[in-house]
């Protein structure tokens, strides 16, 4: 077989840059829509994403809450809710990692990668859907919080800012999860791995208890890790008080996470096998 025979063939018209950009957006929206549809059809997902944080609210509000002394206006429930919302946003990443690992295992990602669709769409569509899912969950948790005595004490604008910060924080964690999901590629391992690193970060923070109540060596970690900065900022936005210092540290951390993990996730997707 001579090379000349097979060498060049007229290429099918390659789409223009503009068309490619349009496809990148429309493909992402299609994937996002599909993921949200799947979410609504899997009761276990709904339970995991909504019921579990509600249980945490009730557990901390009524079981542990009485024993935890805090100095914030409104008492422990005011202290608790920003923490629960931050934790909920972080834990939303489990679904991201598990879904990507499943799609990888089942060959769905191979199928999509072998198609002439936008290569970015599987990740952007996934993260877009996860953002919507997270926002819905956060709003449900806020409503549950209101039912058990929580109130925003700092006005409407900062309350919205708190929800936005929680969502961006959750999205950052989802980027880490997208990377681990694609890199590990096995749903059980991904889930176990998620627990191993997310539990210390969310619980050894200012989310549920004042850090001053922890032993000194643990305080050193809790005081200087991103979850604490984010939760303290959210608490400031929700209840009033100084916000700026923690907000800058939060933004720096979140930007750092995006800068490191978005390229890693994209690379893992391109090489997914």
């Amino acid at each position, binding site marked *: *077989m001579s*090379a000349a*025979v*097979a*060498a*060049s*063939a*007229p*290429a*099918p018209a*390659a789409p223009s840059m503009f068309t490619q950009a349009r*496809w990148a957006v*429309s*493909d992402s929206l*299609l*994937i996002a829509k*599909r993921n949200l*549809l*799947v979410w609504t*059809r*899997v009761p276990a997902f709904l339970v995991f994403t909504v019921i579990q944080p509600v249980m945490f609210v009730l557990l901390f509000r009524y079981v542990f809450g009485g024993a935890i002394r805090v100095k914030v206006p409104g008492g422990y429930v005011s202290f608790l809710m920003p923490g629960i919302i931050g934790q909920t946003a972080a834990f939303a990443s489990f679904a991201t990692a598990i879904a990507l690992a499943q799609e990888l*295992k*089942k*060959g*769905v990602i*191979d*199928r*999509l*990668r*072998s*198609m*002439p*669709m936008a290569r970015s*769409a599987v990740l952007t569509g996934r993260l877009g859907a996860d953002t919507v899912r997270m926002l819905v969950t956060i709003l449900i948790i806020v409503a549950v919080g209101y039912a058990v005595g929580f109130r925003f004490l700092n006005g409407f604008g900062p309350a919205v800012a708190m929800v936005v910060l929680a969502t961006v924080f959750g999205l950052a964690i989802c980027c880490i999860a997208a990377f681990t999901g694609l890199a590990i*590629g096995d749903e059980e391992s991904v889930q176990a791995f998620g627990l191993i690193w997310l539990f210390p970060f969310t619980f050894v923070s200012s989310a549920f208890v004042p850090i001053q109540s922890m032993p000194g060596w643990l305080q050193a970690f809790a005081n200087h890790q991103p979850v604490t900065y984010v939760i303290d900022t959210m608490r400031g936005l929700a209840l009033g008080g100084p916000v700026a210092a923690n907000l800058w540290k939060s933004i720096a951390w979140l930007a750092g996470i995006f800068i490191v993990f978005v390229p890693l996730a994209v690379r893992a997707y391109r090489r997914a*096998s």
Partner: protein
Amino acid sequence: MSQTSSGPAGSRPAILVEGLTKSFGDVRALRGIDLSVPQGTVLGVLGPNGAGKTTAVRILTTLLLPDAGRALVDGHDVVREAAAVRRSIGLAGQSAAIQEELTGRENLELIGRLYHLSKAYARSRAAELLEQFDLVDAADRPARGFSGGMQRRLDLAASLVGQPTVLFLDEPTTGLDPRSRLGMWDIIRSLVTGGTTLLLTTQYLDEADELAREIVVIDHGLVIAAGTAEQLKDRIGGDVLEFTVPDRTRCSDAVTAISKIGQSEPHVDGETGVISVGVGSRGSDALIEAVRTLDNAAVETRGLALRRPSLDDVFLALTGHAAEEDGQGNRRRRGRGKAGGRRGGRDAAKVTS
């Protein structure tokens, strides 16, 4: 070497592969593969688990980059013109790559939309494929409830949404029950009459025989034989004498008894006690002689018979091990499916080849 006959003069092959190599760490999954598939034909790529079949398909479908060599699909280089290749191909892998929570129709419509078909056209294309693949009754139920055969049909339908000119089916019937398997064969045959070029990998020898006129046999990342099923069968030359020894401890006695009759070393399957040996054109003489020598050796046998060679015999003759055995001679159970589906297959590729 060019493995298969080229198509009509002047037409370029739908798939052309030259010196393709790929390693995973120190495991050499492909060690220099050459293929040429004329347009509108079927090539059966036959090999045991871990031979490198899936690796080759993944490179040809732009999912994996080769280490060396080149591959053209529909005239486009799979590395430099990957986007153009993706516009020409369809892929159905070893497991059903469908979204189980969505209905059959939703799955196909989504794929159509991701091929940038208009909403209306994606809808009519989905309806057409559901009809063609006998999924109309189940079309609006979630795919989770589909049988294994139905899921694979839906998966195959999904690979055809974009009307590919070259279709890759990686072990399309692995893990299916015999009846679903026959159903898939019918569908694959009808695709081929429609003019699609098809590259089909399989570890089932009868499947390659049934669906593909041209077959290449690969083992440990190399093409070890190529030709039509008949040509491959001719290579082992004539009939095969086969029988079962119920008392496994007597297998070696039986082999000694018949070793002078065969044209090649007898093959013994230690698990089933089946012994086979090529006897060329000596046919019934060899049969009579075998009865006598086995009787003299006082070895009890069952089902002593002559048969036409199968591709299993070809594989044995070519590689020295049966198609379902790996290189270490460990017996693999045929048709057990692959643990963990696609991933299991690839891990096996890493370990074995």
